[in-house]
């Protein structure tokens, strides 16, 4: 049964101006909103929660989304009241916050093979935007007026949108026959106008771009920068680092790779790492240990760091030594990178998310991170092996794009719902017909993967009629998306209007 809307449970109109200390012309005359007692509120949202899938409900193999288990202890530490401070506090009075931010900058730099990290971007797409803005600032400062960003056809939609938002023309790069970047096509695409190539590796069908060194050379030789989309970093933890592959800029999706909860769509966080040469362009402010002022953008406190690196834009050795060397006596300060692009968030980004990511990395350590990628890749391969659906491209890593072939992938997905699992991402990427992009992550075990495979295979074997009728065991049956888009009803006000309109129509 449906849970009534808040407004159907209570709707009270008040006159806010009545008795206000403000003059009448500044106040509104009416405010009509629901007001629920605490017991009603608790029941309303408890019931809504019972109509919602989650990681704890079962497999959640949305490709490119990395729906890991989000450990409880990280929620606990994020709720520490001592961490609940205002962003305008004197930095000397929030040394705890700065220590954590510094430590996370360090961890991420080390894990990605980058030299400097900003934690400000509040989401992956915001990270992309930050990274491309950094690239733009770099080119402009070097007097290069470049107008194009190259994006593989199979890339995440955000890459295209980001490049466009930053004012670039998007050059779409077709995939090669093997599902990877077509190096010849890339050579043809690069030019003096190339500001950057945005790449995900492993790519969106799970394949590692084996020619990454050559790709980097081509882009770098043309004067462009290489941007790494971190959505798939979970596949590589401890095994390969974007910095080592020649990437100059990358973002991290901490809500994917570092297991912070997805919150029904957010918040996430999209820290951005760059090589030394780009550090001075990062958003302001960043955090450093007091006394590091001489080293532009260097977030690391290690003596073995990148000072001696040559040509950051053409391959470098990002050795941060021990990333875990915060000491109690250290103090921290904020600083503005010299040529900072400014800001991409009103304050410091999604603090409550960053805390969780830091806690997760500290919990796992080297061994845990290495095992996470091992089990993520093992799980994807084991699952694919059990499927009756074909997987056109391989060898894949943490995710794979199966094809529903003659079947409609979206229908197969609806069929899977009745087997008690969440279906994969469907009909994307486009290079695979009727794609079902599947990423089980490391948190499923053998039995769970077998159950998931069973759901896949059963749904895949269902008749079209059965699939069209699916799902039948869910809180709602198939939802009519067309009706929603054709006649948008986006608030309870609109429902009232719509109801009134239809009543009037009936009455005439």
């Amino acid at each position, binding site marked *: 049964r449906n849970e009534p809307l808040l407004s159907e449970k209570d709707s009270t109109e008040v006159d806010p101006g009545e008795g206000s200390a403000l003059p009448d012309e500044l106040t509104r005359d009416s405010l009509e909103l629901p007001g629920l007692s605490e017991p009603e509120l608790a029941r309303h949202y408890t019931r809504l929660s019972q109509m919602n899938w989650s990681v704890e409900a079962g497999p959640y193999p949305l490709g490119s989304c990395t*729906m890991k288990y989000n450990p409880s202890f990280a929620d606990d530490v994020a709720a520490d009241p001592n961490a609940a401070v205002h962003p305008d506090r004197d930095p000397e009075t929030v040394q705890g916050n700065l220590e954590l931010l510094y430590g996370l900058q360090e961890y991420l730099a080390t894990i990605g093979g980058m030299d400097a990290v900003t934690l400000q971007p509040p989401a992956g797409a915001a990270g992309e935007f930050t990274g491309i*803005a950094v690239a733009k600032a770099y080119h402009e400062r070097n007097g290069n007026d470049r107008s194009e960003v190259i994006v593989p056809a199979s890339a995440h939609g955000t890459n295209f949108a980001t490049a466009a938002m930053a004012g670039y023309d998007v050059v779409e790069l077709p995939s090669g026959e093997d599902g990877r970047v077509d190096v010849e096509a890339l050579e043809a695409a690069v030019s003096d106008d190339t500001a950057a190539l945005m790449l995900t590796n492993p790519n969106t069908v799970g394949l590692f771009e084996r020619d990454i060194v050559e790709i980097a050379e081509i882009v770098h030789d043309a004067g462009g920068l290489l941007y790494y989309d971190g959505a798939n970093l979970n596949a590589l933890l401890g095994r390969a680092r974007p910095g080592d592959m020649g990437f100059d800029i990358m973002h991290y999706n901490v809500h994917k790779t570092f297991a912070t909860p997805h919150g029904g769509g957010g918040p996430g966080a999209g820290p951005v790492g760059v090589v030394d040469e780009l550090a001075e362009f990062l958003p302001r402010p960043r955090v450093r240990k007091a006394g590091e002022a001489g080293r532009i953008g260097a977030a690391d406190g290690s003596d073995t760091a990148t000072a001696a690196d040559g040509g950051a834009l053409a391959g470098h050795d990002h050795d941060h030594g021990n990333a875990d060397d915060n000491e109690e006596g250290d103090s921290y300060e904020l600083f503005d990178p010299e040529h900072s692009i400014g800001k991409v968030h009103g304050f410091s980004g999604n603090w409550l998310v960053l805390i969780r990511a830091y806690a997760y990395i500290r919990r796992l350590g080297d061994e845990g991170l290495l*095992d996470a990628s091992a089990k993520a890749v093992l799980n994807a391969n084991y699952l694919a092996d059990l499927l009756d659906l074909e997987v056109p491209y391989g060898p894949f890593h943490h995710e794979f794009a199966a094809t529903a072939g003659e079947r409609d992938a979206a229908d197969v997905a609806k069929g899977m719902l009745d087997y008690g699992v969440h279906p994969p991402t469907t009909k994307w990427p486009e290079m695979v017909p009727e794609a079902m992009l599947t990423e089980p992550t490391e948190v499923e075990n053998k039995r769970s993967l077998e159950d998931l495979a069973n759901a896949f295979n059963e749904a895949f074997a269902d008749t079209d009629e059965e699939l069209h009728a699916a799902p039948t065991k869910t809180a709602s049956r198939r939802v009519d998306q067309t009706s929603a888009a054709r006649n948008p009803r986006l608030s309870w006000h609109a429902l009232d209007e719509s109801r009134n309109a239809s009543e009037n129509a009936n009455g005439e």
Partner: protein
Amino acid sequence: MSGRSAGASGSPFAPHTADETAAMLDALGVDEEADLFDIPDEVAFDGEFGIPQRGERAVVGDLRETFARNDDLTEFLGRGHYSHYVPAVVDDLSSRSEFLTSYTQYQPEITQGFLQALFEYQSILVELTGLPVANCSMYDAATALAEAALLSDRVRSTSGSTVLVPGDLRDGKRATLDNYVDGSDLSVETYPYDDNTADLDALAELVGEDTAFVYAETPTVTGAIEPDLAAVGDLADEHDALFCVGSDPVALSLLEEPASVGADVVVGEAGVLGLPASYGMGLGLFACREEYLRQVPGRLVGESEDADDRRAFTLTLQTREQHIRKERATSNICTNQAWVALRAAMHAAYLGPDGLVDLAEDCVRDAASVAASLDALDGVEAPLDDRHHFREFTVGVDDAPGVAAGLEEHGFAVHTLDDETLQVCVTDLNVDAADDLVAAFAEVTA
């Protein structure tokens, strides 16, 4: 010992026993997981991060120690990041894993709960702003403002390209806006404040054919309530520029709804509901007129029906979004602040209209009262303008940095704006300490 324990040196969140791992590897015909990776040697990483694995208790203990290094100050801070008391039930309900660990509602049949909650959030904002369309969230007030400016680039009916914002705009908003418009045809210019709100005469001079977008805040960054927002709107309207109002849901509970003074778009910080002080983390409010519907950035939830003709909700108008429209999307936003929106709606529904209005009214009265107490001190003037205030106000003293440092020693944090100006923000969370603050002011300025 069990296989699970034997694997304890790996990820504690990968539930494989050693036996299961072996069976899976066997099924795939490989010896170890490493054999499944297709990484060329030349880019393979064989180093170490140097991060030791730690037990949960150690990590929790470490972080508690880390946060304990923050000084325990009573904050009278605002300027864009405000906190009100969040009832425990909001924490409890929003922390249910069904909400917290779910993701975007791509399969509406099993995500009706979150979809309905977001629909309700949208509805609450529609009521508060008076505008018929509100999205599911932007990151924060700064990015919401920036997206609003970009909206004007897509929908404006003038040939103008100037975005007019207050010169006193908080830096975080201005700097974010600058970055967002950098890739568009827009350019940002400022209009001056007079007595801490819009200088209408100066603005009238500045608004013209090249104006695409006029932004005004109420309350402003110093807490002043714009005395004649409609006049700003009229100026924008005269030149067919978009009129964008910045505010927040608590202020909007009491203040004239922006739609009625001509706002085309409303942005702001909706995390004043539901979100505790969180070092600047926010929830971007975004609402607009119906005619911009297909240009709205971010997600929208709409009502529909299921196959049994029962009411159901779904993400809608997704063709605006990047995962469908790619470079022609209305924004690149994907992951947003949905969970914070859920909390804001819970908090609003908990308070109800009376509670919201009471809270807003307290924001007016407490600010006035604390300002008056400070103003009564020798050498202290507050507020420094002749406006009504919401939550916060400016304070004039001889040596602002010195006074702020002195207050810090007394355990209070306030804003220092310049050598002679402080800013103080009063909410339900610190009002009980307001008398102590005033006493500390008296001592420090004596």
